[in-house]
């Protein structure tokens, strides 16, 4: 270093200081700690909380938003946003229900048409994926900001759902169809089973496949992804398709849970799903950050919160206020983490 021929002062910077172990553990696992504290607090506040029935109830209630949130997480990780998922729930609910009406029903939607259950299921998923394809094409090809693109589909798809049914609900669905939302296997409700399966699949997709890696790469630094030879537009489009598919699945579960396809289903779900992702550590301010486990915990936190406020007879109005505070709190936590990085 004392070489006299040196013309530029050496630039040395030490790597991350080691002292902040605790802070780094908290920034990594903070959300899980908060969840654990909440569960303990809830069980102290109400004896009913820890009963099996209640716990299953909590998870079942969050399963629909949880499904949507899995897809929304990927979209946010890629640097986008999806506001259309609640409307997709409404559209896919009525499409699926229209294909699953009981044959004996007096005024069926499609008279004389009886298709196997699988057709209704696939139709819901396909319609969801199709809306996702529209979102993705708008975002990736026309370069419209994702907020605007999905705000457009959010509005238009709800209209399409209303148009499809003429604003009326589609009821009297087959038992097989209703089993998806209302049945259980070995005591576990089917919606929970679907959520668990999709969470595992989504985790593998996001964390262990090229597709997942590229979503994170694009969200982290799209230009860098492009110069590494990645077709960023294509993968951006695909993540919206996947999110749409999951929202379609959610629409199927919701309509079979209440035994009726209603065009007004899923209003506000997109925001709950975004909230779950954000509480779970998905960063809206910096792309490329977010995990499936975090999002599931985020959704569970909302679920436990609603549940314990119900059990302790706190008014529904207060529940909304508290939920709002938690969302903002989660984002502040995220900001602090980002700042810590710099």
């Amino acid at each position, binding site marked *: 270093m004392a070489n006299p021929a040196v013309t530029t002062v050496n630039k040395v910077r*030490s790597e991350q200081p080691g002292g902040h172990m605790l802070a780094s553990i908290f920034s990594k696992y903070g959300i899980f700690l908060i969840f654990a504290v909440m569960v303990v607090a809830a069980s102290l506040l109400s004896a009913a909380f820890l009963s099996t029935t209640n716990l299953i109830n909590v998870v079942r209630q969050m399963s629909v938003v949880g499904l949507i949130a899995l897809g929304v997480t990927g979209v946010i990780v890629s640097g986008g946003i999806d506001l259309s998922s609640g409307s997709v729930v409404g559209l896919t609910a009525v499409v699926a229900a229209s294909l699953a009406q009981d044959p004996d029903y007096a005024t069926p939607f499609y008279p004389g048409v009886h298709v196997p259950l699988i057709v209704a299921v696939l139709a819901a998923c396909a319609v969801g994926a199709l809306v996702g394809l529209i979102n993705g094409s708008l975002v990736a090809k026309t370069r419209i900001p994702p907020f605007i693109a999905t705000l457009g589909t959010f509005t238009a798809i709800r209209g399409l759902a209303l148009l499809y049914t003429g604003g009326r609900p589609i009821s009297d669905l087959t038992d097989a169809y209703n089993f998806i939302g209302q049945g259980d296997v070995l005591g576990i409700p089917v919606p929970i089973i679907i959520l668990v399966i999709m969470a595992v699949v989504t985790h*593998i997709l996001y964390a262990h496949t090229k597709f997942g890696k590229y979503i*994170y*790469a694009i969200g982290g*630094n799209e230009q*860098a*992804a492009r110069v590494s030879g990645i077709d960023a537009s294509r993968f951006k489009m695909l993540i919206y398709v996947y999110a749409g598919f999951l929202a379609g699945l959610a629409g199927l579960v919701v309509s079979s849970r209440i035994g009726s396809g209603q065009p007004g289903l899923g209003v506000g779900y997109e925001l709950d799903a975004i909230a779950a992702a954000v509480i779970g550590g998905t960063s809206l301010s910096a792309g*490329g950050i977010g995990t499936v486990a975090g999002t599931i915990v985020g959704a569970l936190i909302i679920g436990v919160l609603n549940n314990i406020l119900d059990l302790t007879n706190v008014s529904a109005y207060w529940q909304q206020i508290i939920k709002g505070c938690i969302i903002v709190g989660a984002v502040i936590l995220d900001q602090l983490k980002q700042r810590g990085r710099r």
Partner: protein
Amino acid sequence: MEDEHILSMESISKQFPGVRALSDVELRARKGTVHALMGENGAGKSTLMKCLIGIYTPDSGTITFKGERLNITNTHYALSKGISMIHQELSPIPQMTVAENIYLGREPMTWYGLVDMRKMNRMATELLERLQIKIKPTAKMCDLSIANVQLAEIAKAVSYNSDLIIMDEPTSAITEAEVEGLFNIIRSLKAQGVAIIYISHKMDEIFKITDEVTVFRDGRYISTDATANLTDGKLIEKMVGRTLTDMFHKETTDMGSVFLDVQNLSGKGFRNVSFQVKRGEILGVAGLMGAGRTELMEGVFGVTRTHGGSIKINGKEVSIKQPADAIRNGMALLTEDRKLTGLYLNASVRENMFIANINRYMLGPFVNFGRILKDCEKMRGLMRIKTPSLMEIIRNLSGGNQQKVLIARWLLTEPDLLILDEPTRGIDVGAKSEIYRLMTEFVRSGKAIIMISSELPEVLGMSDRIMVMHTGDKTGELSRAEATQEKILQMATGMSLAA
């Protein structure tokens, strides 16, 4: 003769809205050699390289590589043909690991179709060991120093096993020892027959490692020569199109009274520092990265909190809690990282110039754009800022011109003290020389400058007095007459001068 050229780019032109970036330029590189591409900022070097790697598509011209005419429309294609690049703007994906960044886009797969992380980490370990780069492949990019990010980018470019590697300012952030490491890598690549196109503003590197030099100026091809046939002076002359007699324009000015007097100031990253700046003086602040120079100035300017000590301006003690206090007291700070903390990249040149100063241009509740335009035009002429118009988005300007706009911004606030943090980083010689000229004019009018710089020739050339820091402490102060590179380096590395 012709067939030993692995790459021939001929008659390449590229037009951007309002700017003709390249007109009819050529570049030929030979197998197993290092070819320097030189020119001032805005000469079109990076643009041509982006055409070669597929980020831009040239409007006209031909690219022949390994005897094959290529029509390069995307990066993927360029990489697959054996061309890779170390990008000037370091572009890591911050949340991903070093290994994931290196193998982004060509991840090894397991037989059941998932990304094979274990194999990827093993490949990265082998690669980094072979290149003697000491970084953990599992470290996240955002936890690395800038130097290590740059080393990882170098490793990535090499890992493609390309026949041609473009290195666009590969040493902007790394240390002397690491530069030597890079040169070793380059030598072994040369021996394997790889061609390298090397872009750098550092003259000593050009003469040390390159075989041939092509010079561009204002988007035009000027010349190609063997490096051995060139000298510093000749090369600079080709680049700027005129002879630069005195790079630094240093004049001795009459020192006035003490303007800023800092006593025993401490804060995050610096301890107990005292110094003064007189009117008419340029105080150079030297030190290694992490010496606390930037932190000290941010403390003085109110960006970060300080404790203990005092700050006096014109002999009067002042309290500076936020930048607005500092600005009110006649200070201005040009930050080190112009993209992060200085420029509004999507705003126009004009907006970027007057934003710090809008209060001076108010007519009641309205902004007096007429006066702004007049002042900005004046600055544009004074600073020789190359832009098609004041309304041009600043993102489209070259680095040197962006820096000039930032300096213009602070000059418009008519400060008494200008704090410049690495004012010429990443800027070509021509623009550097003009910034030095402006600094000299500024202090001649009885104002003061504090200049943080890691370029020793610049510190020695411009400062009236030099203060040296080491890990947060002030380790010494040298007058212009007594300062030498060796003395500064000794103080900067914390060795006592007596040794």
